[in-house]
């Protein structure tokens, strides 16, 4: 039935128009991502196909060789070192901090720690890089002498751990908050101490939520570039033999190669972008599946 009231007709027209604009803007918000996924997939796959997947993932880069462009092996190894080391340093500390935030949530001290952690999450990651450069790289540089010394994968891992820790700590505290009170009381009634109750029982119950937080923290760390600029020292041709040596990482390789003039570098950068995006989105999707299972 068509409404007689002209103002009502106007309102209905406005309603449709407004909702269309809203839907259009929402679509426009997603459009860049879709185009990024498409272009990274197309350009990346073309670059990787030139050397073959295994070669691309393991061989050193030969950007100026059109016959055999090689791959990103050394940088990928560096990234794996960085992820493993930053997780080994950051995750235990983050769980420890998350427990503190959750267990004393009424106390002002714990709220303050939560507030500072939230601030640290938003802290520009380039400043974290400058910080680790000053307190870790520079002293080593002065000890060995010479500009360009002192950089190491370990320094990069420290920076990434600092980037990831506050986020994971907040996530752990949220996961612990969701554990039912009865479980804690049951553990206490069996005579367990508070330490045992929290670390043996509650963390186990909240493990999925904690794992999701840890995974997203790792995905963030794997994709970070800025904290690595002043810490790992670079070098994409040679495989890092030890985390105490300088090395490359996939995001840093992309950053340096995309700024070169020759197209051989650009192709390697696109291929590396596809590898990085696949790695990060794989971790994200895994964490999402975990969340869904929790809800069921």
């Amino acid at each position, binding site marked *: 039935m068509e409404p007689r009231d002209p103002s009502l007709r106007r309102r209905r027209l406005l309603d449709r128009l407004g909702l269309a604009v809203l839907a259009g803007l*929402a679509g426009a918000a997603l459009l860049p991502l879709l185009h990024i996924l498409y272009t990274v997939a197309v350009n990346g796959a073309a670059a990787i196909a030139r050397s073959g997947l295994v070669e691309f993932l393991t061989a050193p880069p030969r950007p100026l060789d059109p016959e055999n462009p090689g791959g990103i092996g050394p940088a990928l190894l560096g990234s794996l070192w960085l992820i493993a080391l930053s997780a080994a340093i950051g995750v235990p500390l983050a769980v420890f901090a998350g427990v503190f935030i959750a267990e004393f949530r009424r106390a002002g001290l714990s709220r303050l720690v939560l507030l500072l952690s939230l601030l640290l999450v938003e802290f*520009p990651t380039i400043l974290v890089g400058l910080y680790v450069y000053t*307190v870790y790289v520079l002293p080593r540089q002065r000890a060995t002498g010479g500009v360009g010394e002192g950089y190491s994968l370990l320094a990069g891992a420290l920076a990434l751990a600092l980037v990831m820790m506050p986020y994971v700590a907040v996530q752990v505290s949220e996961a612990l908050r969701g554990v039912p009170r009865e479980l804690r009381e049951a553990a206490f009634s069996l005579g367990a101490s508070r330490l045992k109750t929290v670390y043996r029982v509650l963390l186990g119950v909240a493990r999925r939520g904690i794992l999701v937080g840890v995974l997203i923290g790792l995905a963030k760390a794997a994709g970070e570039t800025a904290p690595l600029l002043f810490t790992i020292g670079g070098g994409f041709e040679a495989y890092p033999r030890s985390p105490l040596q300088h090395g490359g990482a996939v995001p840093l390789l992309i950053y340096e190669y995309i700024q070169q003039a020759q197209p051989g570098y650009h192709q390697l950068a696109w291929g590396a972008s596809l590898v990085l995006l696949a790695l990060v989105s794989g971790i994200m999707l895994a964490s999402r599946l975990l969340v869904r299972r929790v809800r069921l």
Partner: protein
Amino acid sequence: MGLRERLLPRLRSRDDRVFFLVHLPVPVIVFMLLASMLAVILYMSLPILEREGLRVFTSNVWRPSDDPAREEYGLLAAIYGTVYTSVIAVLVAAPLAVSLAVAIEELVPRRLRGAVEVLVDLMAATPTIVYGVWGLTYLAPLMKTVLNTLHEHLGWIPFFSKPTLTGLSYGTAGVLLGIMVVPYAAAVIREAYSMIPWHLREAVYSVGATRLEAIRVLLGSVRPSIVAALVLAMGRAMGETVAVSLVIGNSLNIDVALGSPGTTVSSLIASKFKAAAYYEYMMSALFAGGLALFLIGLAVNTLGILYIRRWEEEMHGAA
């Protein structure tokens, strides 16, 4: 109630005291970390501050020299670029993030909601360097066409007063940042929007509001969260480094024209860091930039977080 009672938890037994003591390193480490970060950045910027005073923040000059007496650095262009690009980013992100949040809550069919959520998650998870590569290869040429067309037809408006040769410009950097911060802003807005109590929705519809009118009223009720989301997004945009440094053109230039190249504090640090080791004062000047970034970011983010907290407390208080 004294400060001590408010700060420290109530410890009822020996077991509680042990638990607290074991975890005491947490607040100590967190405080020391933040304090030492600030101290390190301050300490490293002292040489340039002693030499130039606050002029390092208010002048626009970059003169490295082998003779330390002739070196001079001023960060004004970088500070301007950081603020300018992040303001553009917020203006770009605001309508997109609000629409995305509302569309997911109101318009997307339940079956498709999971798929859209995955896309938004992916948007947040995509490494910033990938945004940078895309921005340099695809967005910059597109922006070049757009900005040059706007310059041709609307060149009398200061924002469009200059054409761009490469597309690497304030405008491109701002738009790229805006795209990048959409998922963060949208997440905060969505959370607030989904927490709107049912009786408010029912009340709006019961007086005969159309869906658009209802959405406008409901969005009005979460306005503080929208502000907070945009403030947080702005903080993120200001701290971003590699994506911006690839598309901004890296030149010390203060201009409102969206087509002119510029720089930001973080891309200045990224691009000058390698050379800085060879000069007496350049490294210190870069740390002074870090200090400026820290202070601006701290102010913006503190405002944002406090705003969210206050809003959450009000919501819980009302419920």
